[in-house]
């Protein structure tokens, strides 16, 4: 079969040597794609199971197997998870946690990015004596287990009367987001041509002028990366939420855990899965929409600068 495809001998006296390019169904490819597909199944299975479970009624769950698609699709569990599920004495569903999470998320993301970007800019372009030392401490601090800092922060928040409030948690997220974000921005601003900064100085722009008029407009992509990083990170946080807020201000992850792992009442697996999906929805949407930028964000911590 391959012989007929070769060029006429008159044009190439010696045919090409070596093995033919492999066909699409070579053993190598079957192995390669087979493995990848198999692994994909492992990765997709939990999402699939969650979705089908959340669309079934409880009787169907008790009878059937978790992999079977729902016979009677019902959105009842979703409604219940959102508006009726109970945590303790409150039975207004996950909607409250969602609201809390949004209220925590927006100021945390804005504040942490504003502070870290200016900070990274100062570190990249306006080094002063000791600036690198503080930055090194900050980066080392990122490796310290949160557990060793949690209680002193409780005391500090109490001192400034923010313990248990949303703003206290916003502050905590700003502090703990600072190492990675500062690193991200510092590396980005360092990668911009230094001559641009010099040109702006010759043009008479100062610290803030260069930041707002020259650097900021050039750095939209890195701000988006930082935003993705922070939105998913803060949304997914459990530890700080459970420690620094009170039940009325619990973020969604904490409330979700309380709903699903509550020991009272009959377990409603379909509602639980709907609630779990609801909580995972925000980061999932961000992930699927942002694509490469998400990857860039998480890789930012891994590349040294």
């Amino acid at each position, binding site marked *: 079969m391959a012989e007929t495809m070769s060029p006429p001998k008159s044009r190439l006296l010696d045919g090409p040597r070596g093995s033919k390019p492999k066909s699409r169904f070579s053993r190598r490819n079957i192995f390669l794609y087979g493995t990848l597909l198999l692994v994909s199944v492992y990765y997709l299975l939990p999402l699939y199971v969650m979705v089908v479970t959340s669309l079934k009624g409880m009787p169907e769950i008790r009878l059937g197997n978790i992999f079977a698609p729902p016979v009677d699709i019902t959105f009842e569990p979703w409604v219940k998870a959102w508006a009726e599920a109970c945590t303790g004495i409150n039975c207004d569903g996950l909607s409250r946690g969602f609201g809390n999470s949004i209220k925590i998320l927006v100021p945390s993301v804005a504040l942490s990015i504003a502070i870290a970007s200016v900070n990274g800019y100062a570190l990249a372009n306006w080094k002063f004596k000791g600036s690198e030392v503080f930055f090194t401490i900050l980066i080392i601090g990122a490796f310290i287990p949160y557990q060793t800092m949690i209680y002193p922060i409780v005391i500090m928040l109490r001192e400034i009367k923010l313990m248990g409030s949303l703003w206290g948690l916003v502050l905590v997220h700003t502090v703990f987001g600072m190492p990675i974000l500062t690193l991200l921005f510092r590396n980005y601003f360092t990668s911009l*041509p230094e*001559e*641009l900064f*010099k*040109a*702006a*100085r*010759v*043009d*008479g*722009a100062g610290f803030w*002028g260069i930041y707002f*008029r*020259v650097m900021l*407009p*050039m750095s939209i992509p890195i701000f988006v990366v930082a935003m993705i990083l922070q939105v998913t990170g803060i949304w997914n946080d459990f530890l700080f939420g459970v420690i620094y807020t009170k039940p009325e201000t619990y973020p969604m992850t904490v409330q979700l855990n309380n709903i699903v792992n509550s020991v009272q009442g009959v377990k409603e697996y379909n509602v639980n899965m709907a609630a779990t999906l609801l909580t995972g929805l925000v980061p999932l949407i961000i992930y699927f929409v942002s694509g490469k930028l998400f990857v860039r964000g998480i890789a930012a911590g891994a590349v040294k600068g």
Partner: protein
Amino acid sequence: MNMNANSVEVRDLDLHFGDVKVLQKLNIDIHEGEFLVLLGSSGCGKSTLLNCIAGLLDVTDGQIFIKGDNVTWAEPSDRGIGMVFQSYALYPQMTVEGNLSFGLKNARVPKAEIEKRVARAADVLQIEPLLKRKPGALSGGQRQRVAIGRALVRDVDVFLFDEPLSNLDAKLRTDLRVELKRLHQQLENTMIYVTHDQVEAMTLADRIAIMKGGKIMQLGTPDEIYNRPQNIYVAGFIGSPAMNMIEGQIQGAEFVADGLSLPLDGYEFIGAAPASQAAVIGIRPEHVLTGDAAASVAAKAEVEVQIVEKLGSDTLVHASLGTHNLRLRMDGLSAVKAGDRITVGFDTSRASLFDASSEARL
């Protein structure tokens, strides 16, 4: 001394990064309207010096005067300088017009005045059709014109250029070089120009400062630099192919190296001619004479041709003279080939003699 004739003065300038001394007790006077080129290989401190003059680097010690003002600690924008960078450094999100007017806006120049100056700069550099475009839509040459325009609108006395042509391809570089020369003749400002390209330096400069290790090795006109290098470093740095350097002895009125003795009748010593001294003689490839010209001089030697490089306009010949390698430049049509033995003559009146230990010109 009349200070007003000097546009930029650098006094005892020191710049250290930790233990590294980038500039050492550097002094230089740059005249009003002069085109001064700072030339040297990378790491010699030429860009650092320019950045110090611009105020973009804090000096460790010493003083900088521009137009008689001590500006050592003044902000870059207050020094009366304009600067053009190697990478053009145009603000990518602003239009050409925005780039040109950014500095003026920062200085709160009235709008009408900004428009006037931008229009004038655009006219001088012939970039009017580009004013509404963003830098991304411009070619390299156009970008560099805009960058020059940004310095132009500032209406300053001193222009600083940091390797402005290095990012352009060879053809454009030649064109813009001529244009820069024309611009200098038209504007008559002081221009300080950093480059590592000796052709740029020779063609543009009124004076060249050759730097090495944070010091100025020689400051002089292109002619002086080329024909009367003050030390071995400058002699070897300028000229392509490089000057032939032969180590030997001055004995009486002759330079003697193994198997070679060159009468020094026509050579102009700086001081008195030494009677006996270890020395190095430097002879440019074009001053190694061949054919009839060789026959007419007293200093002659026979060499063996090893490599012939045809350049079209000339022929570059690498030959061996005893243990020395000798580069010589011959006519483009020369038929000499590897293995030939030819007689060469040396024009010692145009040679350079250096003290073998201090490396300074004799």
